[in-house]
């Protein structure tokens, strides 16, 4: 191997972790879950503690499940069940809302996956 070969191989290998960080690291795992009712933040929970919580809203209780760094709506007293169908949220910026019951949850990470979401 010539010196130029060694430089190329080292640079090529050094580029790889950079690529992984750039393209895989951006979807960062969230740490906390922000629960909002009626547009007001009611609680912030760690995503690393598994628990079931019941959040009272205008229509009734929405049940939220936190498990292994992810969270989801288990049930909500609404008709469309959009919030339940959103499924598990785990990455920074991910968001689910039950608009009829005015309950929403959002995952918080150091780096958010989305700046904003418009429906």
């Amino acid at each position, binding site marked *: *191997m*010539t*010196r*130029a*070969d060694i*430089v*190329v*191989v080292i640079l*090529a*290998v050094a*580029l*790889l972790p950079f*690529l*992984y960080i*750039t*393209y*895989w690291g951006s979807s960062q795992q969230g740490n906390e879950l922000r629960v909002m009712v009626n547009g007001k933040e009611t609680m912030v929970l760690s995503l690393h503690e598994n628990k079931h919580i019941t959040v009272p809203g205008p229509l009734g209780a929405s049940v939220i499940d936190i498990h292994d760094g992810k969270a989801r709506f288990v049930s909500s007293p609404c008709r469309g069940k959009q919030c339940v169908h959103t499924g598990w949220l785990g990455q920074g910026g991910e968001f689910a809302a039950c608009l009829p019951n005015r309950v929403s949850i959002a995952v918080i990470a150091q780096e958010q996956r989305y700046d904003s979401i418009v429906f």
Partner: protein
Amino acid sequence: MSLALLTTREDHRIAWLAALAITLHIVESTLPSPIPGVKPGLANIITILTLIQFGWSTAAWVNLLRVLVGSVLVGSFLSPTFILSLAGAISSIMVLRVASWLPLSGRKQGTGTIGSGGSGFGPIGYSVLAAMAHMAGQFYTAYLLFIPHDALFHLLPVLMTAAVIFGIISGFIAHLILGRSLNQPRQSPVR
């Protein structure tokens, strides 16, 4: 009426080397691939050997003929596979052009190039550069023409890792072949 085609030594050389590269290309196309776009790129060995032994323009001919004839034989001519392959070949050959401008590249230095610590590229450097350029060219073409979705970039790290690994391996094979052929009295492969 007989038509005599004047062929030069260079034509014969290109044909021989392209035939070798096409053979590897076809053999490889029968191998299953875990991820689309990941192939060992064994034909790269021939491109690198040609570049070092006979210069860039011969290598460019061999590489482009390999893509063209290989795709006709495999049956992918003008298909997306062919277009990606062509884009990869063109970008790798461009990068090799730039790389071979480096002083003391290839065998201009004399027979002692291989394994000596010259400042130009040897087979492994060329091969890694070519493999990465091939992958990058192919990837951006796929992104621009076929799958213009940002999620495609999630594949890039894996594809590039494969390119670097296979680039090093085929460069090493080229290095071994050069070591052998240079130890024997030099003989043109073409009579």
